[in-house]
């Protein structure tokens, strides 16, 4: 048990996404893009070039009509802690420029655009396809530049970007709490996707704080994480009562498939990030 007082104790921010509640409405993706000045392109339907810090995938159970089922999988950055939360996330380990780093006081994996020189090692290392590269300078057509938020730096060409768990919101909440000489409350720091989610599928908070909803939810028997066998130790948990969905949390090539049967699920789409 961590006996350090609450105010100074390291946080471990994380997310629990209830896949049985998610309707795939895409509100999280738009809220995130608007909150974080995510660049837009003329053709957003080219998924190799379209950036979405949180992307909602659709999977099916692969069964024939009418036994088919679908499930939506929102995928933000997993903010991996690495084994034993030592900060050796796949991306942090390979970044030669220290542009991405693990913050031990929050558990958040940062991305500093002006330090990144675009080698994209982190993109290759990330098993979740959570990182996006700016091949060109983002263009904000007409007066859309007016809608950019000053809380998040707009990116330039040649840098990688990804979900920050809306870290700027934490900074704001922390500043306010510091002035008022108290700790940041659970609801004071919530990510934009959590705030926008109409079905209440996303819950966000300090995974180590027993007063936070995520603390209880991550221990739910429905909880699992993506690709746990890689020991990336993600801070995003998923909930589902459906066994085929839980099964989809770890993917195997067909020869390694433990059930020796055909794939238990099917990921839809045409690749890209």
């Amino acid at each position, binding site marked *: 048990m961590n006996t350090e007082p609450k105010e100074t104790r390291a946080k471990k921010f994380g997310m629990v996404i209830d896949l049985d509640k998610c*309707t795939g409405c895409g509100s999280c993706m738009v809220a995130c893009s608007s909150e974080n000045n995510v660049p837009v392109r003329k053709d957003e339907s080219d*998924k190799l070039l379209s950036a979405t810090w949180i992307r909602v995938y659709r999977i099916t159970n692969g*069964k024939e009509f009418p036994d*088919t089922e679908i499930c*939506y999988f929102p995928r933000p950055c997993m903010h991996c802690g690495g084994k034993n939360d030592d900060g050796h996330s796949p991306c942090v380990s390979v970044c030669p420029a220290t542009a991405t780093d693990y913050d031990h006081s929050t558990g958040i994996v940062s991305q500093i655009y002006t330090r990144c020189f675009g080698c994209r090692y982190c993109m290759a290392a990330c098993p979740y396809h959570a990182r996006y590269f700016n091949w060109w300078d983002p263009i904000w057509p007409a007066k*859309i530049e007016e809608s950019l938020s000053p809380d998040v730096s707009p990116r330039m060409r040649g840098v990688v970007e990804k979900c920050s768990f809306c870290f700027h919101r934490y900074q704001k909440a922390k500043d306010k709490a510091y002035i008022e000489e108290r700790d940041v409350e659970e609801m004071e720091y919530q990510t934009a996707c959590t705030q926008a989610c109409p079905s209440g599928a996303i819950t966000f908070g300090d995974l180590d704080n027993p007063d936070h909803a995520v603390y209880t939810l991550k221990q739910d028997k429905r909880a699992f994480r993506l690709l746990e066998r890689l020991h990336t130790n993600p801070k995003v948990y998923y909930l589902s009562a459906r066994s085929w969905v839980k099964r989809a949390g770890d993917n195997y090539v067909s020869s390694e498939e433990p059930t020796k049967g055909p794939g238990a699920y099917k990921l839809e789409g045409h690749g890209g990030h």
Partner: protein
Amino acid sequence: MKINRRHFLALGMGATAGTMLSPLPWKLTDDASIWTQNWAWTPVPEIGESYYAGGACTLCPGGCSLSVRKVGTRVVKIEGNEESPINTGDLCGVGISATQLLYGPSRIEGPMIRAGKRGEGKWRRLSWEGAEAQLAEKLSALSGSKKSVVALSASKQGSVALLIQRLLAAVGSDRFLTLPSVHDTLEAAMALTMGREPGEGVGFDTENTDLILSLGSSVAEGWGSPVRMVKTAAAKTMIQVEPRLSTTASMADIWVPAKPGTEGVFALSVAAAMIQEKLYDHLFVATATEGFDAFSAWLLENYTPKKAEAVTGVSPALVKKVAVAFAGARRPVAICGRGKGDTPISLAEALSVFALNALKGSVQRDGGLVKVGAIPYTLAMAETDDLGAKLAAVTEKGRTELLMDWGTNPFYTLATSQEAADALAAIPTIISFSPYMDETAAMADLILPDHTHLEKIQDVPVRAGLERPLVTLAQPAVDPVMTTKHTGEMLISVGKELDADAFPWDDYESYLEESCGEMWEALSEGGLWQGDIAWKRGLERMLGTSDRFTFVIPEGPVFLSANGDASRYPLTLVPRSSLRISSGAVADAPFTMKTIEDTVLLKGVSLVEMNPVTAKEAGLHEGDTATLTTSFGMVPVKVTLFDGVMPGVVALSKGLGHTAFDEYIGGKGSSYTALSGAMVDSATGFNCTWGARASLKRG
């Protein structure tokens, strides 16, 4: 000393080690980013005071209230208003992305008159005085057939709708039209079964229901008030009837894959099963209804689960299972309106759904189908008679001389075939009040652009099947970005020219306050007014109500069959709805385009979903390029295979294929609407199309 290869290697390794120990590599990586990332043109958003302004969304009928985040004078983010009983702090992607519509390249800069050929995109800017004079002149210049003037309004009621109606009256026309929706049919059905006063609507008290039997409604994908219904979908027991595994169907406890368009017949078969198995609410039927005996005899003669199976393809066992679940729930409700409810259903189908609810006593009670009181505007509006026929006339050649559009974009929403599109394009004078360069504005002769919902004050009456009347207030969160003018203001000014007595107000704001009457206090203070529920609760209800429900035997067909030759068009095309695609008058903003899956739209081409079995028969594979043809039009598509769609059925997403707007949101995919054609309900005259016969050929 002889220098050999070994020395070279040692030197090289030493140099490498030395460099690595020096700060040089780290300095170089740092410099690399300094020299390659710091461009003068990378925007640095201006900082300023950060605060929230109120508002209301008008991009769909849902009635969400907004909290608009501002930095200085700029709008940077739109969030849901936590005080709203509808969206309680949440918001859909379309609503959030409106910042990009506000500042985006589709905005019209100011009043304009056509300078080139129609649709060519050449315009001449006008002053507002000049533009208003043009409109007044065009209206007064109409000779003879005054009825040839049509106005399409985004809203059936409300302050601006009334001004449009008065402007029409000033030139002698009664063709005040709105886009039809399932509510138009529901209101007609309510008039027959429960009685209806003008302005009254039909609602579903889904908050208090414990089971929703949805007859093709996309509860999780935009039906009714989308944000609220998404919450409902995640929380309630649901039975979903539709031919394709939508998100709603996947979340439902029971999915009934009935053949396309047969949801109404399925509802009747469930009703018949409830009567056969004596599962209906005897007390309610005996004390509060009329016409049950004749109705049940008719039902048992024509729609027993066995007979209905021939139409719906649903086994009697599954019908019985649904009947038992529906009858066994405490407060179930059956809802209808396919997809987002933005297409009417036949009157017969609506009557079937009313009857099904009444059999369970789910009428005028908590959790049931309920009557919604009229909104107490002080200035009354007349409801348009024969809306169906009048709408149909808009897409018939030679019936219209002048068309005005306020937010309905008929060139997209009513162009259900090439013929309809041609008829619209043949209207001699087209006037658009749209703030965006939509398909209708692009074809207009005169544009008098309105403010967007973030720039103006305006009442927004909500017609989304809520259980009580509700009005929200759009508020100016930002000064107008373009040289636009409030349509209400413009109409008062033009109206004065034509009939000064009908437009006695000095300005729109004083008129708005007068028009809202008793609602104004709540609207101006909290941005929202809601009325009382119009039914009695608990014991009070049992102790007697004089309002009785009448079972009405539908006259027209419950199931409208798709036109077209089955040998030429072997498949059935149905629409696919998604909350990620705004399928109304306005296209998705770039942020929302981002969210569209690559099984819906890929590199600008729409994908058509089909069952692998159907694809195999047609010799098609995943990713194939094909042409989708109905008797109303043809479009290029790509094929995507999905087990969840019924064999023989193909599904195309609704809301894509905008041809106007800008390069970021226009020209993406194909429009389902343009292929959907017409299926006219003889009882109401509405186009109730749920799909069309289609063929899919490679290439």
